[in-house]
């Protein structure tokens, strides 16, 4: 056990001795208030678990989209009309030129 472990164990052992004298029973009226609200709440949708990831998912998707455009920028920036103009595929196949 190194010096830090010894110090930390000593401190936490002392902290544990303090205990917690506070009452753990529900305060008067708490259960009634919560139960009254609970029965009026709609049940969580099965998709609720995904909602917390939705914004992060959207940001990741947007970042992927931008990255895809950046990587393929040359394809988007080239003018397709030039390709067609300079390539005579039929002529090449038939060897007309």
């Amino acid at each position, binding site marked *: 056990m190194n010096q*830090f472990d010894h110090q930390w164990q000593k401190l936490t052992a*002392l902290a544990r001795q303090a205990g917690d004298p506070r009452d*753990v029973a529900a305060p008067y009226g708490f259960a009634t208030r*919560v*139960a009254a609200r609970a029965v009026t709440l709609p049940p969580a949708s099965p998709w609720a678990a995904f909602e917390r990831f939705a914004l992060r998912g959207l940001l990741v998707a947007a970042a992927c989209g931008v990255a895809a455009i950046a990587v393929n920028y040359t394809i988007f920036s080239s003018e397709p009309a030039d390709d067609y103009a300079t390539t005579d595929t039929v002529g090449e196949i038939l060897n007309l030129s």
Partner: protein
Amino acid sequence: MADDSFDLPGCLDRVRRRDQVAARELVDHLYPLVIRIVRSHLPRRVAEEDLAQDIFLKMFTRLEQYQGNVPFPHWVSRIAVTTCIDQLRAQKRRPEFRWADLSENEAEVLDNVLTDERDVTPGDALEARELVHKLLDQLKPDDRLVIQLLDLEQKTIAEISAQTGWNQTLIKVRAFRARRKLQKLFQELQNKEKS
């Protein structure tokens, strides 16, 4: 949770049928479990009763999703733990820890622990607890939770895994990371004290 005769499955059935009395009994039954978790991981400036209420409302809205794979109190514990962690994350910035932030008694306890010159006494327990919580405030919420459960509540890795739903390797990694951060904090405090 002291009432062993409480008919939990029967109560849950009635709650699913929107029985308000059963919902009240369930809250009363689970309140000690929830409030202990809330008090252990209570974020600064958040009222414990408000947080407990949030946890119970989440429990009721998700009740249809409970499949019975884990004991119901464990399932509620996980909701309580994740709610507390979400609250701690929402606070974002942790204030820098300085020697000057400690009360006179807390500083004395820390000094005794660091220098090992004088034994700490049981009378220092309250200050030690405050001090430990101030130190834990410096950790990331997940790491803080692991150290709290391991070192203060003396739970085993398996018990923490059941309570949080995290796998045991992840818990060990978080404990290691948290202790390293605490060690660094101790060293900084020692250096500041000397200077």
